[in-house]
């Protein structure tokens, strides 16, 4: 009975794994029908006796569950947007350009979820259940601004009505519970702010883990260069003959290069000159990074002075100086770095890595300088606020004194009846910060779109149409069509996301703006790529796997978390705007809520925040990391041992065939070398990455068999399977290729070194 059950289980497992077997469909169908028939016949038999109905019911539910899962998977795949578009891009440009669009789509998904949180838990409750616009001071446009509140120039600066709307922090009321649902808005605002970071962190790490599992990013890059070039360089998604030609050219070049590289590795040129040049280049670049940081600081300080002056006297440039300077730096510095990097004379892939690292440092430096300047500004505002607070209290006291004088009442004095628009308002620093971030994001969007339109589209138009009446061939020579700059665009996307993360706490509407930006960006860039770009000549993947960019995203997430947490913890919220007004610190809202909970829950929290407990948990995690590190090193060593063993066995076989006895000693040594347990098939985590290749001889010798027996037998079967499907020798050579490179736009042959961008570095798209 038990054996029958076992067999039924086995058949079920076989059905589940049938698609993993490299058999022909006919054989698989046969096996499937057999296994299904067997299961059906005996499953009924198993359910004899008392439990029969229950068993049958369970079986039916299991089947329905499987079907439901499959339908759900189908539905999920159907829901993925833009699949056709991306496929079109893939077939024209190959998978590396398409990977940018896939990344963009992933970002869109992440932002959609974050937007859902913000919108559903913060904005909607305030709009539906909070007080309406104009009822309390923080929600009303002040009297002196009311004339200009609807002007386009004011609105485009996010002043006027925008400033006093749900988009920014200042609009939200600080009532503890609102509406008939008693929705705790301040608590929700705080938790959503933290939750956004938590959710993003979780998603990024989950994606990184998934990529690491699939892609073996631990392999040393130089280990299998030639093999990888040969076996994995062709991109099967290419469906366009022109792209295919380019790909052939790039593969040929890369073969030739690596053959030459291999020979040149021994050459040792003038190393001192090279070192000197490299140091010089690094010094120059550090200077320019420092210069750009100082420039931004200077400009932000100046903009604060401008803010104190009357805004109607300022020109457009003076008002938008900060954003203008930051975008300019983002456009000008990367090509500058690239030019300086020519001094360094690195291998192109290494040079690309340096370039990316420098651009990263540039953006980071700029962003953080901007933040420091902003924090100075905030501190100033806090000082001013104290003054206004004192004024307000003084005015109130005066009013009370007058009232008492006139009406002879000292208690229960009603509050003064002032229209909300006339109340003295403090400078709401959080809204100011929010406005700065929103303005920065919007200008970033504008710059990106302009660069695409002018840099790519205009350029393509000019090259195409002026070519008829120009002295040299524009298409093959100087400007020619642009290539899609993958790394520049990906970095731009990542930094944009970093700004969004930083700004969302102070401007809940920023998330919505970002969603619009991502959607429009997808359509615009797909169109621009298809209409004005040409496929890359040299295929240089800066990241051998997606994890490189995910790693940068994770770093940016941490770096954007820090300013927000800093301001949450150390700065006191404004006294008259936002959901935390009136409290000492923003996190007080959580402490208040905990204190209001039933006593036993409050006790739990008190115990949990005990420093002793926290320290021991941190120690435990450190120990776990150390342990896992040691284990992974042990696996690597076992891998090397196995490789060596196989080689020794092969030598022994050869020697045995040639009748030399000298190897017996080696075999004996080998036996001593082999630790007893390490030849058990490595645990599941390692298996997909390191199938231990057994020896090649058809008879599975005793020693070879112990090395991962299960896999050894299976692999043998596969090898013999290849032989079992025999064909005659291929008498036809692989078919002739289609027509050569198309005239005009074709670039079948890699042009000379005249192109400054032949290295695939990022051109001024940022």
């Amino acid at each position, binding site marked *: 009975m038990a054996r029958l059950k076992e067999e039924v289980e086995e058949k079920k497992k076989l*059905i589940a794994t*049938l*698609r*993993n077997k*490299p058999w*022909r*469909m*006919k054989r698989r*169908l046969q096996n*499937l029908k057999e296994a299904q028939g067997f299961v059906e016949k005996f499953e009924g038999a198993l359910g004899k006796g008392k439990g029969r109905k229950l068993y049958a019911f369970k079986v039916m539910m299991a089947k329905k569950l499987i079907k439901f899962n499959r339908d759900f998977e*189908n539905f999920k*795949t*159907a829901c993925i947007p833009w699949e056709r578009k991306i496929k079109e891009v*893939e*077939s024209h440009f190959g*998978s590396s350009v398409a990977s940018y669009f896939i990344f963009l789509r992933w970002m869109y998904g992440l932002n959609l979820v974050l937007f859902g949180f913000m919108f559903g838990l913060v904005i909607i409750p305030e709009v539906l259940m909070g007080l309406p616009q104009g009822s309390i001071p923080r929600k009303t446009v002040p009297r002196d601004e009311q004339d200009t509140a609807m002007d386009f120039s004011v609105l485009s600066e996010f002043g006027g009505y925008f400033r006093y709307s749900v988009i920014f922090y200042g609009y939200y009321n600080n009532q503890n519970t609102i509406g008939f649902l008693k929705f705790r808005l301040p608590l929700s605002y705080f938790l959503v702010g933290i939750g956004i970071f938590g959710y993003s962190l979780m998603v990024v790490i989950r994606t990184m883990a998934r990529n690491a599992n699939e*892609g*073996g990013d631990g*392999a040393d890059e130089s280990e299998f260069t*030639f*093999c*990888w070039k*040969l*076996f*994995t*360089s*062709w991109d*099967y*998604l*290419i*469906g366009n003959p022109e792209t*295919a*030609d380019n790909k*052939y*050219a790039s593969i*040929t070049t890369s*073969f030739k290069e690596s*053959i030459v590289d291999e020979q040149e590795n021994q050459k040792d040129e003038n190393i001192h000159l090279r070192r000197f040049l490299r140091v010089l280049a690094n010094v120059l670049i550090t200077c320019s990074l420092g210069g750009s940081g100082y420039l931004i600081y200077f400009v932000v300080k100046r903009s604060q002075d401008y803010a104190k002056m009357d805004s109607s006297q300022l020109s457009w440039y003076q008002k938008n100086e900060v954003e203008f300077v930051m975008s300019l730096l983002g456009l000008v510095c990367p090509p500058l770095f690239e030019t300086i990097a020519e001094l360094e004379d690195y291998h192109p892939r290494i040079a690309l890595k340096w370039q990316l690292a420098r651009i990263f440092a540039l953006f980071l430096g700029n962003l953080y300088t901007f933040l420091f300047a902003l924090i100075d500004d905030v501190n100033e505002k806090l000082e001013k606020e104290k003054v206004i607070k004192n004024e307000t209290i003084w005015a109130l006291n005066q009013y009370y004194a007058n009232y008492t004088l006139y009406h002879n009442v000292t208690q229960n004095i009603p509050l003064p009846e002032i229209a909300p628009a006339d109340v003295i308002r403090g400078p709401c620093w959080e809204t100011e910060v929010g406005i700065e971030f929103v303005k920065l994001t919007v200008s970033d969007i504008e710059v990106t779109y302009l660069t695409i339109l002018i840099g790519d589209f205009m350029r393509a138009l000019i090259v195409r149409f002026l070519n008829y009446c120009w002295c040299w061939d524009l298409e093959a020579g100087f400007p020619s069509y642009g290539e899609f700059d993958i790394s520049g665009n990906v970095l731009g996307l990542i930094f944009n996301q970093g700004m969004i993360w930083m700004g969302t706490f102070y401007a809940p509407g920023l998330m919505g703006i970002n969603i619009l930006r991502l959607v429009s960006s997808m359509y615009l860039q797909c169109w621009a790529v298809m209409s004005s770009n040409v496929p890359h000549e040299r295929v240089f*993947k800066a990241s*051998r*796997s997606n994890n490189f960019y995910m790693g940068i995203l994770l770093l940016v997430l941490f770096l954007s978390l820090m300013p927000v947490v800093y301001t949450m913890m150390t700065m006191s919220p404004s006294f008259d705007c936002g959901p935390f007004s009136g409290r000492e610190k923003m996190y007080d809202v959580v402490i208040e809520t905990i204190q209001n909970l039933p006593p036993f829950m409050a006790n739990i929290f008190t115990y949990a925040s005990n420093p002793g407990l926290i320290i021991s948990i941190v120690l435990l995690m450190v120990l776990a990391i150390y342990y896992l590190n040691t284990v992974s090193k042990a696996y690597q060593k076992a891998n090397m041992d196995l*490789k060596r063993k196989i080689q020794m066995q092969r030598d022994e076989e050869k020697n045995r065939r040639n009748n030399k006895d000298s190897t017996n000693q080696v075999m004996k040594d080998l036996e001593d070398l082999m630790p007893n347990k390490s030849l058990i098939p490595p645990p599941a985590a390692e298996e*997909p*990455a*390191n*199938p231990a*290749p057994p020896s*090649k001889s058809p008879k599975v010798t005793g020693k070879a068999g112990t090395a991962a027996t299960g896999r050894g037998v299976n*692999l043998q079967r*596969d*090898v013999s399977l*290849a032989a079992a499907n025999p*064909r*005659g*020798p*291929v008498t036809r050579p*692989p*078919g*002739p*290729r289609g027509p050569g490179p198309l005239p005009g736009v074709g670039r079948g042959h890699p042009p000379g070194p005249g192109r400054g961008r032949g290295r695939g570095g990022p051109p001024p798209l940022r």
Partner: protein
Amino acid sequence: MGATASKLPKDQLSEYQELTFLTKQEILLAHKRFNELLEREDRQQIGGSRVPMNKILTLPELKSNPFRRRICQVFSTSDLRDGSLSFEDFLDLLSAFSDSATLEIKSHYAFRIFDFDDDGTLDTGDLEKLVNCLTGEMDNTRLTSEEMKQLINNILEESDIDKDGTVNLSEFQHVISRSPDFVSSFKIVL
């Protein structure tokens, strides 16, 4: 085409879903495209008919692929060994090249495709043909015979673990499993 195009029966559809890595939409799309390739009179009987190789090679996804003939031959189960594909062969092809196929399946089929003489190993002749496929048929894009020799030496040095001068399936899978690009580039989507 018109209304006489045969539809896939439901139980077969669910069986195919069970046995391949394709989703229902992908199978239906494959059915449609395969139908278009068949001659008019064969369209009713999609189960048994085969599409000759030259028609398969007109598919835009395969047209520019240097290995298109090998792909057809590897996946064909025809007795005449002429590279013609039946609908089930076509599904096998799409399943092995789909996004969700495992590394083992992909590397198995990649090995079979690269094995030009079908002897179960990649020897020097196979590797040479492979390099020529990838570098194009023009004389000025080919490698010289010295470069070819050097290249093949380097490859065998890297991947031939048991030093017998050929790359067998397990060595191939070992090399491929470390490559982060393989799974994402070994894909064909209709």
